[in-house]
Structure formats: structure tokens, C-alpha cells
């Protein structure tokens, strides 16, 4: 059964910590099944390294079915590997052949510092979400399903934006290291829906300002992000972010950082001196 198995050479980025110097190290991986996923191939290599009492390669992954956004590698210079619009966990060894030399690198993004080897810290994206990528709701009984009508086209469009898994491929592929596709998708998924409308101005300004605080570049509309996005998030989301921000900034009547009026509690009894 092993007649279709093959050997490859992996050139992988090894780096002990965020401030340590890194280097490319070559490993021979033998007897690879074409049915293995790329990450399983790294698992095999890691088991081998552990047996040899060497440090295994740190690589981030969780669901391994392309929906969580944990994995993210640059394989042979291609973000998420050679398959179009898929995460690297969906890449299989059948895409390679005997004797291939495969270069594996982490996202080399200034705002995603390398934690170790191939794992990077993407918390910069979390901080953008924290600045406004949510809706404020009153807790209580679940509302009636059709209480707020949403037409199918809009629901689909919002869902397409919400498909973003926050893997950071858009930033890694961008010539400038911009996070506009991510931020655009996160602003869009809420701006499109009635539930997101009350806070849309505040959200656009706050999320953009949070994005600017991180070390991301500017979008120059080259659309490399759209070409690599595993969830096929469209650059129309970037235009929507531009639009949301410019309209909120130029036409919005309140400042985003001022507390919303309904949140200011007025004491029933005036305080006594």
C-alpha cells in the first residue's frame, strides 16, 4: 500500500521566541501519504523531531476543517498555500510530488509578532473587534424570529461578510500589510442588518481608529487580499468601510466617544451636599 508514498523536503522557519532571531531549517519528511493534509505532514515531522529529542515545530491549528481561522502559513510564497480560497489545513499532500522542496513561513506582518516558529500573535485583530465589532442588546427573552424583517439579499450579503474567520491572510498577502478587508467585513456584517444600524456610525469610527493604532499599512486597492481570502470576502466590504467611516465622520451628529444618551442614568433623587 505504500507504493504511492513519497518523500519531500520542508524548509521551515524556526524562531524560538518573539525577540529571537529566526532562520530557515530544512527537514526531510519521508513516506508521506498523498491523502495526508499539510498539517498532518507537519504532525508526522513533529513526532519524528520529538523522538529525536528536538523541539517540535510550533504551528497553530484548531478545527482543521477550514472554519476556525487558526491556521495560517505561507507555503511556497502563497498565503494559505497553492489552493485557491481555502485555508492551509485544507491543503493536501497530493498537491506535491516526490522530491519537492516546500518552503513554509509564518505570516510576516509587523502587527502580528511571531510567538514561536510558525505561530503569530493576531490579537491586533481582536482589539479592532473590541472597539466596536458588536451590537449592544438588552438581555431578556429571545425576540420573535420575524419581529425585525430582513430581506434575503441583505441577509445573504451580511452572511458573506460574516464568513470572515479572522485568519489574517488578507494582511499577510497585502503589499502594505493593511487590515482593511478584515475590518471592512466586520463593519459590514453589522452595518447591513437592522440590529447593527443604531451603532453603525460609532462603530465605523471606533473600529477604524482602533485599526489605525495597530501597525497596519494603508489599503492601496490592489486586491491581493480578495485573491487569497479563504472565505472569499469581497473588496466591496472595504468600500463599505470607507463609506461608513466617511459618512459617519462627515454627517454623523454625535461624537462616537461620547456616551450614548440612553446609557446615562439620571438619579431619581438629587444628591445631597
Amino acid at each position: 500500500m505504500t507504493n504511492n508514498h513519497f518523500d519531500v523536503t520542508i524548509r521551515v522557519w524556526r524562531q524560538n521566541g518573539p525577540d529571537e532571531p529566526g532562520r530557515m531549517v530544512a527537514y526531510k519528511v519521508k513516506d508521506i501519504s498523498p491523502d495526508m493534509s499539510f498539517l498532518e505532514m507537519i504532525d508526522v515531522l513533529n513526532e519524528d523531531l520529538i523522538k529525536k529529542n528536538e523541539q517540535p515545530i510550533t504551528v497553530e491549528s484548531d478545527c482543521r476543517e477550514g472554519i476556525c481561522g487558526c491556521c495560517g502559513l505561507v507555503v511556497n510564497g502563497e498565503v494559505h498555500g497553492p489552493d485557491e480560497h481555502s485555508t492551509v489545513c485544507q491543503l493536501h499532500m497530493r498537491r506535491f510530488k516526490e522530491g519537492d522542496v516546500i518552503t513554509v513561513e509564518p505570516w510576516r506582518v509587523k502587527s502580528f509578532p511571531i510567538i514561536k516558529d510558525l505561530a503569530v500573535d493576531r490579537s491586533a485583530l481582536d482589539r479592532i473587534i473590541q472597539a466596536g465589532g458588536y451590537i449592544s442588546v438588552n438581555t431578556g427573552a429571545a425576540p420573535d424570529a420575524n419581529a425585525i424583517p430582513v430581506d434575503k439579499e441583505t441577509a445573504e450579503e451580511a452572511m458573506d461578510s460574516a464568513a470572515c474567520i479572522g485568519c489574517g491572510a488578507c494582511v499577510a498577502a497585502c503589499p502594505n500589510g493593511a487590515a482593511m478587508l478584515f475590518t471592512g467585513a466586520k463593519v459590514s456584517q453589522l452595518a447591513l442588518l437592522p440590529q447593527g444600524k443604531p451603532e453603525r456610525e460609532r462603530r465605523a469610527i471606533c473600529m477604524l481608529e482602533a485599526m489605525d493604532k495597530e501597525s497596519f499599512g494603508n489599503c492601496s486597492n490592489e486586491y491581493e487580499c480578495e485573491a487569497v481570502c479563504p472565505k472569499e470576502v469581497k473588496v466591496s466590504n472595504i468600500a463599505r468601510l470607507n463609506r461608513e467611516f466617511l459618512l459617519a465622520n462627515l454627517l454623523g451628529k454625535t461624537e462616537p466617544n461620547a456616551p450614548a444618551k440612553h446609557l446615562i442614568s439620571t438619579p431619581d433623587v438629587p444628591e445631597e451636599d
Partner: protein
Amino acid sequence: MNTLFLKRLITTSIGRKALMAASGLLLGLFMLVHLAENLLLFKGEVFYNTYVDFLLSNPLTIFLEFGLLGLFIVHITMGVWVRIEDFINAPRGYEARKWQGGRTIGSSTMLYTAAAILAYLAYHMLTFRFVDHSIGFYQMITSAFRSKMFVAVYIGGALALVLHLSHGMQSAFQTLGVNHPKYTPLIKLGGWLVALAMMIFAFISVYYLLNLDLKACGTSEMLVIR
């Protein structure tokens, strides 16, 4: 008075890019007007010089000129600012990197074509704006077009404009938030048409370089007399 929203046009990334995009679109519009004016050369010396005199006799023209200077300053300042940030934050150090088809020749050379256009603009101002105009504008322009050296530089400037606008025009709309399944393909096409129209500048100069105007009048002897 709330001036925070005006500050945000400078302090945020989208604000800066919107200023660059809006000034860029207006400069593109100016280039189309400039092109239409250059086409008036074909109407002949008397017509062209009368038109220029009409323009210069309008006291508002000087304000428009300063407005144009302002557009250039905003466009260049914001462009350089944005590019410096990009340079600092761009992903670096990939051992191998393959672009996935998003980039175009126009989009990846914006900075270089911008520098070429600026250099050309300086040359253009020194040859046409800050010189003695007493021989008449028609004479001044057409005699410049009869120099091979000048036409070569002129065509270079036009080509840089074509590349710059091929990305810049449609990109400006996206930056200003205009993206629609119906209109974006038309905007992209329109952007390319405006970009390619810049080649008409080059054609006009070649027309005069080859003395086609004199041949058309059957007065090629005129050149010898001059």
C-alpha cells in the same frame, strides 16, 4: 465648535486616503480639460492664441491656478504620507512570495509613475509656464513639439500618466466608498478610458513633430523660412 471631524480627515488612514482620492479625481478632471484645450491647437494659431488670451484676461484664472496648486499639494502630501506608513508596515522577509493576481502593473508602480509625473511636471512648468510668452502660445507650444528631445520626454510623461491613472481613477472611487455591482465595472472601464486618453497628448506632439500641420496646409516651405 466641533472640528474633530475635520481633524479626522488628516489623523485617520481613510481620511488621508479620501483626501488623496478626491484631489486625484479632480486632477484627473483637470487633465481632461487640459487635453480638450490642447486639441484646440488643431484649430490654428489665431484661434488658439485668442482662446489663451480669453483665459488669461479672466481675473479668476489666477485663483484657479492656485486651486490647482493646492490640489497637487494635497494629493502629493497625502500620497507620500500614506506610502511612508505602507513602507514601514509592509510585510517583509518572505523567502518566496507569489502575487495572486490582484496587483496590476499600474497599481504596483504608483509611486514610480507619481515620481515620473512630478519630474515631468517640473520640466513642463519650466518650458511652458515660467518663460517669456511674447512669441505667442501657439508658436511656443508647436515649436517645442518640433523638437525630438522634447517629444520623447513628453511621450514618457504621457505613458506615466496612463499607468498612474489606470489604477488611480478606479481606485479613487473605491476609496471614496463607491462600489456597486452595476457601476464598478463601468467605473473601471471609464478609468481605463481616461488613462488611455492621456496618449492623445502624445499623439498631438507627434503630429507637430512630423510637421503634419504644415503638410496639411501644403506650406512645408514655411518651416524653412522660419
